C-alpha cells in the first residue's frame, strides 16, 4: 500500500503567546516541532506499512526549514518526503492550503491512502484534510479512532461521531484523518535518523505545480481574512462554597441554574 501523510511544522511550545498590542503570534523561529496530531497519522502509516508492505511518503507545506519535520518522519519510518515551498504560498488559509497540498499530492505519485492528523495545534480548524479530499475527488472519513481491517479494496474503520461510533468501509484511494490516540506514536530513532541523513527531499515550488493558478494559492487564494488576533480572555473569578455536602450541592445547583448552564 502506498500511503501519503500530510504533516505540518508548528511552534514547539504549547503555550502560544499573542502580543496584546500588535495581535501577532509570538513565534520563536528556532523552536518548532511536528504537529503533535500528525504524529498519530505518521504512526498509523508506518504500522500499515509494517503490516502490509508498501511505501510511506510525507508531504508538508511551509518554509524550507520545514525540512526538519520531514527528516523527523524519516526517523519514524517514512520513506520519501515532499515540501511545497514558495513565497507565493505564504499567507494561505485552509482553502488555499488544501488546494496547494492537493496539487503537491498529484506530483507525489500513485497512492492508495492519504492520512492526516485530526487538526493542527496552531490553526485548530481540522478542515484541511477533508478539503484536500474534495480537491482530489476521493472519499474521506474524519475522526477515525481505529482501523479494523485492511482489505484489498479498502479499509474498514471506526469513526467517532461523538454520540456514536460508526463502523465504515472506505474504498481506495481515500483520505482518512485519524484521531488522537489511534496508536501511541513511536519516538524518532537515532539509527534511522543517521541512515536517512543524506536522503534527498523533493522541493516543489509554484512553478512545478500541475495547475498554475495564482488566484488559488497563498494570500490571493484565501477568502479568509484575519481581522484581528487576540489572546482569549482569562477568567479567574473564583467562589468558595462551604457547608455540608448537601448544602454545597444545593448551592452549586442553584448557581448553575442561575447562570443557565443547566
Amino acid at each position: 500500500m502506498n500511503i501519503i501523510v500530510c504533516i505540518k511544522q508548528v511552534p514547539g511550545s504549547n503555550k502560544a503567546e499573542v502580543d496584546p498590542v500588535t495581535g501577532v503570534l509570538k513565534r520563536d523561529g528556532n523552536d518548532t516541532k511536528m504537529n503533535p496530531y500528525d504524529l498519530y497519522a505518521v504512526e498509523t502509516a508506518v504500522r500499515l506499512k509494517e503490516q502490509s508492505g508498501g511505501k510511506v511518503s510525507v508531504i508538508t507545506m511551509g518554509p524550507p526549514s520545514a525540512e526538519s519535520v520531514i527528516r523527523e518522519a524519516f526517523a519514524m519510518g517514512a520513506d520519501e518526503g515532499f515540501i511545497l515551498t514558495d513565497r507565493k504560498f505564504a499567507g494561505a488559509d485552509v482553502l488555499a492550503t488544501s488546494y496547494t497540498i492537493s496539487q503537491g499530492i498529484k506530483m507525489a505519485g500513485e497512492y492508495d491512502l492519504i492520512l492526516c492528523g485530526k487538526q493542527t495545534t496552531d490553526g485548530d480548524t481540522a478542515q484541511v484534510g477533508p478539503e484536500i479530499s474534495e480537491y482530489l475527488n476521493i472519499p474521506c472519513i474524519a475522526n477515525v479512532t481505529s482501523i479494523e481491517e485492511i482489505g484489498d479494496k479498502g479499509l474498514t474503520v471506526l469513526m467517532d461521531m461523538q454520540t456514536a461510533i460508526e463502523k465504515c468501509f472506505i474504498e481506495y484511494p481515500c483520505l482518512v484523518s485519524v484521531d488522537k490516540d489511534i496508536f501511541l506514536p513511536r519516538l524518532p530513532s537515532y539509527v534511522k535518523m543517521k541512515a536517512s541523513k543524506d536522503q534527498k527531499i523533493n522541493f516543489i515550488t509554484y512553478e512545478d505545480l500541475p495547475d498554475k493558478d495564482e488566484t488559488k494559492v497563498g494570500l490571493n487564494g484565501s477568502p479568509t481574512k484575519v481581522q484581528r488576533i487576540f489572546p482569549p480572555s482569562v477568567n479567574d473569578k473564583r467562589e468558595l462554597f462551604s457547608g455540608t455536602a448537601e448544602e454545597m450541592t444545593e448551592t452549586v445547583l442553584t448557581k448553575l441554574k442561575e447562570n443557565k448552564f443547566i
Partner: protein
Amino acid sequence: MSYKAFEKTDYENLLKIINDDERVLYGEEINEEYSHDELGGTHSVPDAVVKALTTEEVSAVMKYAYDNVIPVTVRGSGTGLVGACVPVMGGIVLDMSGMNKVLELDEENLTITVEPGMLLMELAAYVEENGFFYPPDPGEKTATIGGNISTNAGGMRAVKYGVTRDYVRGLTVVLPNGEVLNLGGKVVKNSSGFDLKNLIVGSEGLLAVITKCVLKLMPLPKKTVSLLIPFKSLHAAIETVPKIIRSKAIPTAVEFMEREVIKDSETYLGTAFPDKSGDAYLILKFDGNSKQEIESLYDNVASICLENGAMDVLISDTDERDESIWKPRGSFLEAIKSSTTYMDEVDIVVPRNRIAEVVKYCMEISEQIKIRIKSFGHAGDGNLHIYILKDDLSDTEWEKRMKAAMKLLYEKARELGGKVSGEHGIGFAKREYLHESSHKTEMELMRGIKAVFDPKNILNPGKIV
C-alpha cells in the same frame, strides 16, 4: 531522658499560643495520616498536631516543648520512606505544609527565598515561569522543600547539577529551645567558621526546625532532549553506564529501568509506554540552549550505546514525548507498590562504576532468598532504589527473608565503598543499618552534635543517632 506525659492542659496551652482551634489538633481530631509516612512501615500517633504558619509560632511552640520536655517531630508532606516524620515518642507533630509561600525572588543574587512547606513542583513551576531553574529533581514532586533539605534529596539531575545541599544558600531555623537563627545567607562564598547551615541540611529534623530557605537558582536551559535507549538485558544496559560517564558527556540524568517495572507503571497509570522492544532501558537527559547544541552533546553517547548492544536510541524532544517517558518513570515507586501487598526499600549509593555489580547482586539474592526484588534508579550517580516485595509471603516469612536480603544488600554496599542511603535518609527504619555500617566514632560525633543542638533530646527523638 524521660518526657512529660502530654496532657489536655498542654493542648490548651498550645491553643493559646496558636490561637486558632483549626490549627491545633488533639486526640480524635488527629487524622490517621499523621501516624505514618508514605511507605508506612513506622506507625505512631502524635498527642497533638500544630499547623504552624510563621517562624514566631514555631519558636513559641518549641519554647513550650523545651520548657515542658515534650518531643516534637516536624512534618512536611509525609512523602518520606524511612519514618523520619513519624512521632515515635509521641508528643507534638509540627505540620509545616501551611508555610508554603514564596517570600522573594532575587534576580540579582540568583536566589529564591521560600517557606519550607512549599512543594517541589510548585517551586519548579514558579521559577521556570520566571526563566530560572532549580536543578534538584527528586521523583516525588509533592514533597516539600523543607523535606528535601532535611534528607538532602538528590533526584534525577544529580549527575550534572548535584544534590539539594548544593542549592541551599541560607536557612532560618528555630532551635529546640525556641531561639531563631539565620545560617548562611545569600552569599556565594562562605569561610566563616563551621558551616552550621550544612549540618542542618540532611539532619532529618533532629537539630532544628527550618522555617525559611534561601535557595540558589540557575538560568533555565532553553531546551532539553531525552534519549530512551532499549537494551536486550538489564546487564547490557547497566554495563554501558560507566562508558557513558567516561566519555565526558554530561547528561543531566542517567536512569535505568526494566521492562517489568514499566509494565507495572502501564497498569498503574493506564497509559502505554512508547517502546516495547527492550527488556531494559536507559533514559538519558541532556540540556542546553538549542537543539543543535544538544545534538552535538548526545551524538557520541548514542554511538557508545549502539556499540555496546543498544537496539536503538530513541529521541524525545517535545513536551508530549517527554511526558510519555518521564511520567512512567515518575510513577515507578507507586506502580511497584500497587503490584504487591507490601514492600520495603533500600536506597544504597555506591561509586558509580560499581552500580552494575549491585544490580547483578540484586538478581542473585532474589533467587537465593526467594523473594521478589525490583530495582530502578539513578544509574548515573550510583544511587539505586531497590524494592523488596512481600507478595503472598506470611508475615514471619516476609520478616525473615526481607531482613536477610537487606543485610546482604547493605553489606554489599559497604564492600563496594558505598553508603546506606543516597537520598531517602535514615529516619527510624534504617538506623540499625547506619549503625552497622558506620565507624563507632562517627556515630559518637553525630550523637555529640545532636546533644549540643538539642540537650533535652526533644526534636525528632528516636531517629538516626
